[in-house]
Structures are given as structure tokens and as C-alpha cells.
């Protein structure tokens, strides 16, 4: 937030006027959002303190569902796996998609083709993604392991057939799949950087790296914050790819939180417990959001 903004809470009339104006902009989205998302989400959080099978009247059980969280091994495993996934997926995707956007944010022959190629993984059928990556990562016949063996690795990873390597395999696939998506967001962000800034930096004798550090990175901060938040949220909610690629296996080595939420709620009909799980997920992501938001505010100031 720029300090030079002269809109301050100088007087009450101004505040009232701003509030009215602000809300008039928010309302079209907020009405829909509040009714169709906030209300059911609030209901879900209420259900977290009840025992509910989706049909009969919910029964208040206090903190029982949360107590169960403490002893539920599945929850611990899923929480660990989700964090593992997030820690691998977030930085890798951020770097790869930023590099892609930088490389493809220029006029060059065939840039349309390259951007399309980068976006293709995101629109390819997820079944095809799972099958082909599982094939590439096949422990014995897959090209990846054959390459590793020619490099002299005697015991290449078992990837999705081994509990230790299944999560890295999922992470690699998901980075590949998501890179085009976040590239699009970065591309839009790069458009806001005025070319004059680069010109001025060049005239000051800044190297390419210095221009990147001192012009690109700071100017991209709002976009980077957005991408980082979406990546964080997306990672903690990861569902589809895991379901199709490993279905949580082998064993439960890739079981993630949203899978557990789905299984406990929709499949097993224990909506109280599944709501408690989502409340926990919500609190985790909310804390990360608030931390990131504060950090971002500080850096923008």
C-alpha cells in the first residue's frame, strides 16, 4: 500500500463516504459469495461440532470430533503428506512458472507455439497425465529410470510403486501440470512493468541480473503474492491428481487431506468429522495467509 495515498481516515464523513463507495463495488460479488459460499462454509464449521450423517438432525458433540483428530493415524499421515507435497510443489512451481513467463514474455519467432506447449499440460486429460507419467516413471522399463541407470545409478527410485518415492513422483507431475497455469498469471503481471524502468536501469549500467533483481522482482510483487497464495491454497487442497495418479497409495504414502475429507464425509457419511478436518485445514491455510499478507504489506509499504 503506497503511503502517498491521500485517502486517510481524516474525518468521519470521508470514512462514511468511502465505506459506501467501497461496499458498492464489493456488493455484486459479495452477495453471491456470502450466500453461496460463506453460509455453507459457516454451516460446515458448525457441523464440525456435531455428529451428522447428512440426513438426520445434527447432534452437538462439543469437541469430540477434534479429539478424534488427535488419535486418528490417517489424519496424521494425511497432514504430513499434504505438508510434504506443499513444500515440494510450491517453490518448484513458483520458480519454473516464473522462468517460463520470463522466457516467453518477448517477441520472438514461435512464442505462441511455446506458450501453448507450456499450457498444454494443464488442459490435457488428467487420466492421460497419470498414465503417461506413470509410464515414464515405470521402475524398470520407464525412460526416466533407464536414463538414471545409464548415468550409473544402480538402484533408481521405484516412483509410484514405492511408498518412499510416490510423493516425489506426484510432485514432479504436478509441477509439470501447473507450470503453464501460473505462467499465465505471471505473464499478466509482467505486462504491468513499464519498459521505461528497464531502459532507465540499462542506462545506469545495470546488468541483466541486476535488472531482474531490482526491476522485475519488486514490480512483480503483487503477482508473486497472488501466485504464492494460490499455490499454497492449491497445494493444501490437492485432490484430483493424487486420486488419479496413485489414489493415495501405495499404502497411504500419498494420502492427502482433501482425500480424507472426501472419504470421511461424502463416502462414509461422517460429516461431523470431515467438517472438523476441513476446519483444521482452513485454520492452517488461514494462518499462512495472514502471515503472508502481513509480510507482503510490510514489503509493499
Amino acid at each position: 500500500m503506497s503511503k502517498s495515498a491521500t485517502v486517510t481516515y481524516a474525518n468521519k464523513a470521508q470514512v462514511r463516504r468511502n465505506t459506501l463507495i467501497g461496499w458498492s463495488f464489493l456488493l455484486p460479488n459479495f452477495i453471491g459469495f456470502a450466500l453461496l459460499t460463506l453460509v455453507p462454509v459457516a454451516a460446515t464449521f458448525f457441523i464440525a461440532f456435531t455428529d451428522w450423517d447428512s440426513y438426520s438432525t445434527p447432534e452437538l458433540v462439543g469437541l469430540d470430533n477434534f479429539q478424534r483428530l488427535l488419535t486418528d493415524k490417517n489424519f496424521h499421515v494425511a497432514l504430513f503428506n499434504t505438508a510434504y507435497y506443499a513444500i515440494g510443489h510450491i517453490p518448484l512451481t513458483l520458480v519454473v512458472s516464473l522462468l517460463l513467463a520470463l522466457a516467453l514474455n518477448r517477441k520472438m519467432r514461435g512464442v505462441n507455439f511455446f506458450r501453448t506447449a507450456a499450457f498444454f499440460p494443464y488442459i490435457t486429460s488428467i487420466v492421460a497425465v497419470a498414465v503417461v507419467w506413470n509410464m515414464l516413471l515405470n521402475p524398470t522399463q520407464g525412460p526416466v529410470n533407464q536414463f538414471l541407470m545409464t548415468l550409473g545409478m544402480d538402484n533408481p527410485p521405484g516412483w509410484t510403486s514405492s511408498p518412499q518415492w510416490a510423493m516425489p513422483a506426484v510432485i514432479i507431475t504436478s509441477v509439470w501440470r501447473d507450470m503453464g497455469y501460473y505462467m499465465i498469471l505471471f505473464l499478466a503481471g509482467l505486462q504491468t512493468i513499464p519498459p521505461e524502468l528497464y531502459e532507465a536501469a540499462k542506462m545506469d549500467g545495470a546488468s541483466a541480473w541486476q535488472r531482474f533483481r531490482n526491476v522485475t522482482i519488486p514490480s512483480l510483487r503483487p503477482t508473486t503474492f497472488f501466485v504464492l497464495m494460490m499455490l499454497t491454497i492449491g497445494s493444501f487442497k490437492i485432490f484430483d491428481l493424487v486420486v488419479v495418479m496413485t489414489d493415495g497409495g501405495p499404502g497411504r504414502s500419498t494420502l492427502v487431506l482433501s482425500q480424507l475429507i472426501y472419504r470421511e464425509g461424502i463416502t462414509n457419511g461422517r460429516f461431523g468429522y470431515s467438517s472438523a478436518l476441513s476446519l483444521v485445514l482452513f485454520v492452517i491455510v488461514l494462518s499462512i495467509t495472514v502471515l503472508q499478507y502481513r509480510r507482503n504489506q510490510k514489503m509493499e509499504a
Partner: protein
Amino acid sequence: MTTELAAARDTVPAPLDPPTKSAARPVHGLAKVGGYIVLVGIALLVMVPFFWMISSSLKNNNQVFTVPTQWIPTEFRFSNYADIWTRIPLAKYLGNSLFLAVTITFLQVFTGSFAAYGFSKVRFPGRDGLFIAYIATIAVPWQAYMIPQYIMMQKAGLTNTHLSLILLQAFGAFGVFLMRQYYQSIPDEIVEAARIDGLSEWAIYRRIMLPLSVPAIASLSLLTFVATWNDYMGPFIYLTDNDLWTIQLGLRSFIGQYDAEYAMIMTGSVLSVLPILVIFLFGQRYFIQGIATSGLKG
């Protein structure tokens, strides 16, 4: 930083050509060709799963999932592409998907960018807290509140209508967040100057912010369109009548209790990617560096 940025913008006139294009640098011809070959190679590798889709769509159903993978069908079945139109009412499903995707994208972009202006350029108490609530709600997986939401919709008599899906997806927080972040990078000074010139907030939004945010609107539209187009669970839960089904539901109708016609599914998947490709290629022209800033000057 923001002020520096704005200052630089005010003093240096926008050049006609983006200054950072690689062609400006003298690159050795041979190295350039080599570089291109490598790039094209990587691009093709990235698209390998898509080639698998195409290959599978030309196979007999029994030959889709094999060990080892069969990349070239023993016998090309182009008839799959003709048959699918009669096996399922594909044209109707595509029409429904298109209707939903376009309507939802339009509403999401409109309400999202509108709200984003409020969140980024108007200061009022409680704004930041509300904004965080918006973001945090994105974090609740839909699977968690799907049933309460469905019950609400059922009580409102809206299940089994396209309207239910439109209402559900058009007011998402994603668009608000995306547009807000983009507006953050537009200097407040521009807005201030307009205010001093006597422009109302709505005029500032429409005449200054909207034209400036074309790249962001393009990416939001693209991503919303793709998300709606590829959405499966939402339409599955809310739409019951076959007449209302979308392409993703149509594709899954080839999955039976114990078996699935994957050749048909892949045929349909290839077809369903085409509209997205058209939109993507069309949207490309909004991602060439310089467009936003030249808009700023105009």
C-alpha cells in the same frame, strides 16, 4: 518503490517497441538455430501426454491401456471421431458447456474486477479483514461444504438447473483476488490524479482501471473458462437431466460399473480441448509485453 515506479513512468516516454526483446541482441545464427531446436524438443516432450490422448483416441478400446505403451495404433480408427457424435449427444453437451463457461466467465470477470477495485483503491474500515476472509474461504475444499450447499440449493428449488451452477461459480473469490493483486501494481497516483480531475469512482474504474487491466482480464477469463469447462464434480452433483449435461459429464458416461470405453473418452477429450485452444490462441495477443503500458499512455 511504487513512487519511484510511477515517477519513472511519468518521465520516460513509452517506446514503440518493447526494449527487452531478444532479437535486439546480436545472437550468433547457428547458436540461435540450435537454441530453437532444443526449445522445440522440450516443447514436444512437454506435450507427450497429449500425444498419448490422440493416439488412444484412434484405437480400439482394448488397446488403450497396455503394457508396454503402444504409441502408434496397430489400426487407426478414425471412425471414433464420427461415432462419438451419435453415441452421446455431444453437440448438446458442448453447447451446454459453452453456455455455462461463457456466462460464468463473464460474471466472474465483471463482479471480480468490480470488487477488486473496492479492495484495492478505496480505503474503508474492515476492508483488509474482509479480504483475508475471501482468500481464506478459497482454502476450504468444496468437498467439505458441498452437502450444506446442495441442501440450500435444493430448498431454493435450484438443483437441476444451469442457474445453480452459474450462481455457484460466478461469485468466486479467485477473480476478486487476481484482479485486486493486479490493481495493486497500478500506482495509486493515477487514481488520485483522476479523483482530483473530478472523476467519480465508477468512472475511474471504467475509464482507467478496466483498460489498464486487459492482460489480467485476459488471464482471468482464460483460467475461469478452463476451470468451468473442465469442471466435473459441480455439474455432476447439480445437474440430473441429461438435457442439461456438460461435456465432462458426457465423457464420463462412457465409464460403466465394471468397464470403461477409454478410446471414446480420449476421443471426446481431444475434441473438448479444441475450444480451449482457440480461446488460448486468441488471448495470446494480450500477453505481449508493452500492451498494458501503452494503454496507460493512451
